[in-house]
């Protein structure tokens, strides 16, 4: 019962702050609301027995990526864009597309929700204390993807440094 109520609260928080993210004028406020969303999603992870992922969510997303984003927001001037028009020229087209998409998704979910009632639902304790399991899986079964991901990160890092670098004098 507690889990359900918490889940509802966290979901509402996540959705509400997500709406705030895309409607705020000031990107810093957007970023702050996004942090709220990320926290709520992290809470959902906890309810879903994924404490390691919760920690990763906080450390990487909140402590890393969002700091980076806020850093960049402060680096580039926000005053100018804050005064300008907020929505792009094709916002109407975009919105329509998304609404159609949302309707499709909703319909599909509505029709297919029965299919989600899975035959074999895992016991509640199956994923308890899964940090070690994740580690084992990551470094044994998923060795190659981990390496690929690390190369991706390396490339991204080098690329970011190169792009943000000043022109050579």
């Amino acid at each position, binding site marked *: 019962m507690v889990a359900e109520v918490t889940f509802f609260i966290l979901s509402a928080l996540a959705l509400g702050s997500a709406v705030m993210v895309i409607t705020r004028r000031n990107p810093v406020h957007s970023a702050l609301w996004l942090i709220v969303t990320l926290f709520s999603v992290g809470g959902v992870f906890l309810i879903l027995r994924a404490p390691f992922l919760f920690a990763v969510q906080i450390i990487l997303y909140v402590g890393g990526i969002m700091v980076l984003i806020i850093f960049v927001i*402060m*680096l*580039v*001037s926000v*005053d*100018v864009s804050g005064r300008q028009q907020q929505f792009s020229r094709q916002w109407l087209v975009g919105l329509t597309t998304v609404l159609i998409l949302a309707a499709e998704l909703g319909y599909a979910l509505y029709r297919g929700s029965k299919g989600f009632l899975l035959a074999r639902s895992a016991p509640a304790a199956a994923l308890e204390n899964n940090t070690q399991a994740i580690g084992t899986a990551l470094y044994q079964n998923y060795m190659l993807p981990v390496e690929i991901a690390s190369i991706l990160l390396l490339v991204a890092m080098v690329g970011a440094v190169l792009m943000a670098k*000043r022109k050579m004098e």
Partner: protein
Amino acid sequence: MPEATYLDANELVINMGPQHPATHGVLRVKLRLDGERVLGTECIIGYLHRGVEKIAENRTYVQFAPYVDRMDYVAAVTNGMGYCEAVEKLMGVELPPRAQYTRMILAELQRIASHLLWLGTHALDIGAMTPVFYTFREREEILKIFENYCGARLTTHAFRIGGLQYDLYDGFEKDATKFCDYLLPKIDEYEELLSTNRIWMNRTKKVGVLSGKDAIALGVTGPVLRGSGVKWDIRKVQPYEAYDKVEFEIPTGQNGDTYDRYIVRIQEMRQSVRIIRQSVERLAPGPIFGKVGKVIKPPAAEVYHSIEAPKGELGYFVVSDGSTHPYRVRVRPPSFVNLEALDIMSRGHLVADIVAIIGTLDIVLGEVDR
């Protein structure tokens, strides 16, 4: 500056001072920044302007003497000495040796005091907060000697035109020697704390580099010039008082960076100790006044006299019309000219280096603004 950004699309203009912990007074520096890199600086000075040169025209020669103490208020003795000597030169007065050596001892003590104060505040600017207390402690001993000698600690008004106001107090020689013995190990301590410290070296080496040629072109004098490798000290090249009778060396640097200027000043303190020791030995009883009348009334002429103040060449250009009031007294302040080099020295450095460079120039705003 609403459109200010931190990228080179636009420059950020930051105002450092006039109330800023690291500008050593009421110096205002406008920094043009690209990120933290300095594109240019503009010094705005004059917040402490008191019109000293105008005051001089409305005072007698004697009355003006206390005012010069208030220009470089951390080196009042040398200020007063320069002024007195300029007027004495104008009048053609020769001082008796006792007065000369007394002046030299006090001036060298003052040089040590000024360098100590500089070292403390410079270290504080760079983030080491402890040396300032040590150096002030040592400086306090010097100020005690001053207080015993002339009754004032900071703005001493120690000398009079033609000689000394006071003869040395009993035990002065002992105090001075004792101080020298006390100071040398302390200087070693500062070096222990800073000279080889990697952070200190990182912060000062290759910062604010000034080649010897640039230094001369910019007109900087004193330790700043010597840090750039120019072996030039007025005490040696154009000796005044009895500096030609004592032995000492002129420490110089090689790279002309902040670290070299630091080393030069540290070494200068050691040399000053040498001068003090020799001068104390040569103190002999005798008169303390040259042949001056009760009324100071120099001939109508003009004279330029400069001495090696702790901060550089301190010059006095005195124009007399033959009356008791100077017609014009021009002060050539070392800090003013040295500060001019800030812009060129700081280009391309970071904000933190600006602080180090202002510190290493060793300016006193009372002297810059007069």
